[in-house]
């Protein structure tokens, strides 16, 4: 039945193609045109242009000057760029593992079908849909050194000299990391929840009968069965975290003393405050190279630890 129907469909399609190849071509490009035009102008050509711009000095006032790899060489010796790169790496390393651990824990707790599941899921997920600018503002207020909620709480429980948070070179990046963990938990949690629901419950029952304890069931069933979800969450979280911008912009403007200056914030400053388009474009390509390399390495490594059943 099904084969017969497919054959009909293919026949009709094939005859149509033979009759008017040109018409099909025109129809296809008719479908494509609105998107293709916009895509070419606002995405594809800009990507190529960005590559060219990164080989120039261009302040938008005078004509662009071709400088070859000079911008990339400058990046290699620019101490500010190294600071920025280091800050971004610290941010990623501080955010991603903690965020993933907490969200896995929460997802496992929620997958037990407790009362109020819907309430908890809503609460954990709210920061994900919230505008980062708006929540960064309230976190700036929470981290206020003298009157902030956090330090008031720390005073109350007897901490005499709580950190100055956003105004301290030592703590500012940690503050942004804490805020970002808070914001990202819900996203990973939802993916982990979906992954956990796909684990067949008979595996746990069989393990129970065999006398496996809770830790063993987690280590030998949950972890391997969840490895492809974990892999996905890890890749997406790292890619997103490397592009951190709004927190630095709203909470600290990259300060104090560049303590929270991140890659994208630095790109923004060079492009749209200093108007060094070429240098900023070169930085943007380094960001792409980093993201691309990490994703590639992760895809290579997944063979060793991701199990698909």
């Amino acid at each position, binding site marked *: 039945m099904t084969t017969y129907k497919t054959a009909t469909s293919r026949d009709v399609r094939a005859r149509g193609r033979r009759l008017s190849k040109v018409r099909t071509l025109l129809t296809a490009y008719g479908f494509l045109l609105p998107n293709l035009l916009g895509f070419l102008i606002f995405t594809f050509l800009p990507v190529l242009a960005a590559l060219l711009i990164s080989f120039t000095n261009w302040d938008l006032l005078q004509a662009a000057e071709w400088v070859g790899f000079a911008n990339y060489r400058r990046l290699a010796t620019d101490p500010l760029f190294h600071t920025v790169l280091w800050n971004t790496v610290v941010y990623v390393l501080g955010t991603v593992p903690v965020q993933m651990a907490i969200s896995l824990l929460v997802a496992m707790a929620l997958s*037990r079908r407790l009362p109020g599941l819907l309430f908890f*899921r809503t609460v954990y997920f709210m920061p994900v849909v919230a505008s980062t600018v708006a929540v960064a503002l309230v976190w700036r207020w929470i981290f206020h050194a003298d009157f902030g909620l956090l330090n008031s709480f720390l005073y109350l429980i007897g901490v005499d000299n709580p950190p100055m948070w956003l105004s301290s070179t030592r703590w500012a990046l940690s503050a942004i990391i804490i805020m970002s963990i808070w914001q990202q938990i819900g996203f990973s949690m939802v993916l982990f929840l979906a992954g956990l629901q796909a684990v067949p419950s008979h595996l746990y029952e069989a393990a129970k009968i065999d006398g496996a304890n809770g830790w063993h069931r987690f280590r030998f069933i949950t972890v391997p069965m969840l490895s492809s979800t974990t892999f996905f969450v890890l890749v997406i979280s790292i890619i997103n975290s490397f592009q951190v911008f709004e927190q630095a912009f709203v909470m600290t403007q990259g300060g104090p003393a560049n303590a929270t200056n991140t890659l994208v914030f630095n790109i923004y400053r060079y492009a749209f405050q200093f108007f060094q388009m070429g240098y900023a474009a070169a930085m943007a390509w380094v960001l792409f190279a980093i993201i691309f390399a990490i994703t590639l390495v992760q895809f290579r490594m997944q063979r060793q630890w991701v199990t698909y059943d």
Partner: protein
Amino acid sequence: MTDGDARLEPATRVSKNRRERVGDILLAVVLLPTALIMLMPFIWMLSTSLKSVGAVFEFPPTFIPNPVHWDNYRRLFEVLPFARFFLNSLIVATAVTGLHITSSALAAYAFARMHFPGRDALFLGYLATLMIPAQVVIIPNFILLRYLGWIDTYQALILPAAFNAFGTFLLRQYFLTIPYELEDAAVVDGANHFQIFLRVILPLSGPALSALAIFTFLFNWNSFLYPLIVTSSTEMSTLTVGLNTLQGQYNTAWTLLMAGSVIALLPVLVVFIFAQRYFIKGITMTGLGGR
């Protein structure tokens, strides 16, 4: 992801007590404290936005404002045109979503359901841009918009944001999964591609289309870097850019800043609470939404 399942699954009789105890411990140790921490910034935002300027600096801090200062919100709309910001965000997010969905669905149909010369090469071009971060594209786009004299216009806020490879890619993958048998009847009746697209493919793609719509809207409602760069006047600012202007002018006026944040968050949170399942489905389907 089914919310009602808790009722369907009776706890295993044998270990009911133990399961309940583990559940209680989880609830008490993990979920309740973390949920409180997760909610705290929102509560604190709302609470501050309703306090008097003096009450903001009280120690120990209080959560219930007394008396309630609604006039913070009135002042907010006086110092900056927040109604206009709101309208701008609404116009931009709606237009971008409409354009992105419509044009992506059409292109995705051609890529998924038609055979034509150049198809695979073109699609490769789309794919190649998927991994490139937005920050790479933003510099040439800014230069282009400046050259066109479009800075500080709606078309600058809308057009570049509406066209990227994501929607086309997502919908193409979805359209590929729709069996060809379903369009047989239409083909035999002599339907053309546009009719098949409209009457067969689109009605079957509800989940993918709604997920894409929700996230395109949300992303553009919350978008900051891009509108910050392509607008220069207060009148053309979106809500996020307006909030930043507010912070620039009233850097420590916490009651005003928090009132502004509440205004920016409220519509999204309300929509989210009512349309939660679509958000959640959308995330698991597309992997979108994490920033």
